[in-house]
């Protein structure tokens, strides 16, 4: 299609760098999908769609063979080959942010120009999930030295590097101008390989607008064509607006509370934890605070994930909660501290306030502090409060990732349970997850993971609240719906503007 349309986009943030290996964050992933292509990508229903890899096949338990698309060109004009994949893989293993995800992988074996093997050290069921993170870089472009003698491929967390200011991928858009924090301009890559793509946008201007209300106003007053995220409070308004269109999806980011058993004796008692689980009205929070813009949760895995357990339902029942408190010997309640960020998740501080009010009903007095994220995370690392709110999105789009970071027995050496601020520890469950992680039969694996969810639920290991929904809004005529997905990586290359 002729790419002649212009699109003005307002996100809450712009990409912090052009080096997609410098940071693992939503913004960078969005950039990756605009200027690069992955080997394969997620479809709307969480299946896989080939991109730079045309096909793949399992060679053995530890090896997967990929065949690459031919005739693909980088922005620089260089031809795309297996060597670029190898280069990219090695660089990912260097990246501080990505190396953890690529830990199970040992190497890339180049077979020929368009064929390579991806090798893991052990059987790894999530190989393809992870492969969605491989956006091949232009190895020739990123090799060698800059004028002042620096390695072009270096990943620099701070200070400018070649890669953070220059980019050459295979993606649909090249970056023509970038003023950080102000705007980024993209232009359709003339030699883009995917000629079947219906996308007809020739130029994209991305402006970061951090303030929710301003972003919405920008759309309503016609200043921009497409905004994300849409704050829950404004959903109605956009729905009512004749010139705008709203797209929502239930998301995969779980919001939950940890109850720190090391700080509060009572939290060691499962009855108390269950009481709290019964006291929290997930439906209420989702309906009122999130304006229905969240899916009440009773577990961590969202629908579509292997670990998602259909049977688990929110269990709001104040009477039951009071009874449990009484049984546990805490009829008169106790006082705890609670902490939540106030600018990290959608309505995070309001959620925490509401939860505090709900706990007050079972005589748990809550001393709540909400903090900006920069101050919240250090406190979180110190486990500075008795209950802490956290949101989690599995980078691998897989349930096991939740458990590894949020419920595993904390172990500083292996890094397990890094964000387990409840200090909940059940080695049995951990073992079960470990087993699932090398189970390549996906059905068996799903059963194991669902069992894990059930056990965590029974034990009230944490208090799940909801999965944060996703919302985008665009002007009428900008057909965003087809290019959106739950990972929140709009495939703008395929966007059609009428």
């Amino acid at each position, binding site marked *: 299609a002729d790419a002649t349309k212009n699109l003005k986009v307002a996100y809450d943030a712009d990409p912090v760098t052009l080096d997609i290996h410098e940071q693992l964050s939503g913004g960078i992933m969005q950039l990756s999908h605009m200027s690069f292509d992955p080997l394969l990508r997620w479809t709307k229903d969480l299946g896989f769609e080939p991109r730079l890899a045309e096909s793949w096949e399992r060679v053995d338990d530890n090896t997967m063979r990929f065949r690459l698309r031919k005739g693909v060109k980088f922005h620089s004009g260089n031809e795309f080959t297996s060597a670029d994949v190898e280069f990219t893989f090695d660089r990912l293993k260097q990246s501080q942010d990505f190396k953890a995800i690529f830990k199970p992988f040992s190497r890339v074996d180049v077979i020929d120009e368009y064929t390579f093997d991806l090798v893991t050290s052990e059987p790894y069921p999530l190989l393809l999930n992870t492969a969605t993170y491989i956006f091949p870089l232009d190895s020739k472009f990123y090799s060698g030295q800059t004028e002042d003698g620096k390695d072009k491929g270096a990943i620099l967390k701070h200070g400018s590097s070649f890669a*953070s200011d220059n980019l050459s991928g295979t993606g649909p858009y090249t970056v023509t101008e970038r003023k950080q*924090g102000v705007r980024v301009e993209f232009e359709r890559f003339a030699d883009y390989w995917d000629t079947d793509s219906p996308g007809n946008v020739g130029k994209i201007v991305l402006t970061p607008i951090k303030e929710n209300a301003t972003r919405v106003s920008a759309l309503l007053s016609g200043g921009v064509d497409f905004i994300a995220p849409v704050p829950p409070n404004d959903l109605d308004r956009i729905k009512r607006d004749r010139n705008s269109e709203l797209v929502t999806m239930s998301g995969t980011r779980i919001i939950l509370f940890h109850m720190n058993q090391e700080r509060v004796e009572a939290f060691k008692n499962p009855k108390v934890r269950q009481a709290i689980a019964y006291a929290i009205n997930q439906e209420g929070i989702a309906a009122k605070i999130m304006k229905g813009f969240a899916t009440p949760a009773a577990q961590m895995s969202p629908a579509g994930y292997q670990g998602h357990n259909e049977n688990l339902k929110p269990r709001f029942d104040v009477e039951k909660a009071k009874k449990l408190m009484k049984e546990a010997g805490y009829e008169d309640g106790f006082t705890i501290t609670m902490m939540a960020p106030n600018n990290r998740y959608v309505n995070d501080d309001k959620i925490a306030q509401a939860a505090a009010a709900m706990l007050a009903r079972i005589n748990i007095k809550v001393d709540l502090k909400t903090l900006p994220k920069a101050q919240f995370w250090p406190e979180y690392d110190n486990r500075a409060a008795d209950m802490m709110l956290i949101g989690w999105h599995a980078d691998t789009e897989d349930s096991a990732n939740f458990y590894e*970071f949020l419920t595993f027995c904390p172990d500083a050496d292996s890094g397990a349970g890094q964000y387990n601020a409840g200090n909940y520890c059940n080695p049995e469950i951990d073992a079960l997850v470990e087993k699932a992680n090398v189970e390549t039969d996906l059905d068996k694996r799903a059963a194991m993971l669902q069992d894990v969810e059930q056990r965590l639920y029974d034990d009230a290991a944490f208090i799940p609240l909801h999965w944060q929904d996703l919302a985008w809004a665009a002007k009428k005529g900008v057909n965003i719906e087809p290019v959106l997905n739950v990972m929140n990586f709009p495939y703008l290359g395929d966007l059609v503007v009428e």
Partner: protein
Amino acid sequence: MLAFLVQRVSQALLVMFVISVIAFAIQDGLGDPLQEMVGMSVSSEEREAIREELGLNDSFVVQYLRFAGSAIQGDLGNSYFYSKPALEVIAEHLPATLELVIGASLIIIVLSVPIGVYAAIRPQAWLSKFFMGVSTVGISIPVFLTAIVLIQLFSIGVTVNWFPADTGWGQWLNEFFTTEGGLPSYGRGDDLVHLFGTWESGLFTGEGLAHLVLPCVSLASIMLPLFIRLIRAEMMEVLQSDYIRYARAKGLGAGRINFLHALKNTMLPVITVGGVQLGIMVAYTILTETVFQWPGLGLMFLEAITRSDIPLIVAYLMVVGLIFVVTNTLVDLIYGLVNPTVKLTGKKA
């Protein structure tokens, strides 16, 4: 004159020193800059390594000395978030803020002088009373409320149907209060003209100017009433003076008396206050820029705070301190030129 300059330079240095020490002393309190730099799943060892690399684990004194050492050579360090020299980041954001301040100052000057003078010459006229009333209300409304209301009225627009539409006057009133909206409510627009260096200006294109309107008006809304009141009060006092009476006794016309004799004397104190207010206005841009997502220094600063981007915070504070001292010095110089009775010394007037 020499003493005056030496005094100002030393004041500027002192301001910058104090700020940098304070900013460094508090950096731990602002949060962990790493949170914005790495993804959630990065392990603690990795984080520790980055910290070490950035020198964040050194003691306060070591960090400060390192900073001061390079600061003396004009290097205020690299912004964590922007990954480039903090001064460069500031230089990029400065034009946006300056344009905002210039625009607001123009509005203030163009409106405050005639209104203030009028209200002083005709204190009893209903129009004067109206202006004074509005200005009192004006200083009582926080700038962010003004900004919110402006956006609602002029960007989004409101449709009013409070009045009976079937009567002519009702319809007229409805139409009167109904606003179209359509003025840009965020950012500087796409149509900027590149001047030099990092300076892109919105002053030369229709779109650029349109984007300037609401932010400038709301920024001006805080200072305008102050200036009107100040000019009026000073002018009223000047009008009572003997030399004004004398000018009248000489048979001079009202125009010459009001606009030469009185106004010139009125503007002297106003200039001094204006200088201070100009400095304060730079700080107020924090609020305006937040609401209008104006990509200037204020927004940058606030974001730097939420990101604990210490080098940028320090640099911003130092630069703003410097701007304040420089504008004050300029204003004092102008004051010295305009007012024949003072000679510049190190002492405050």
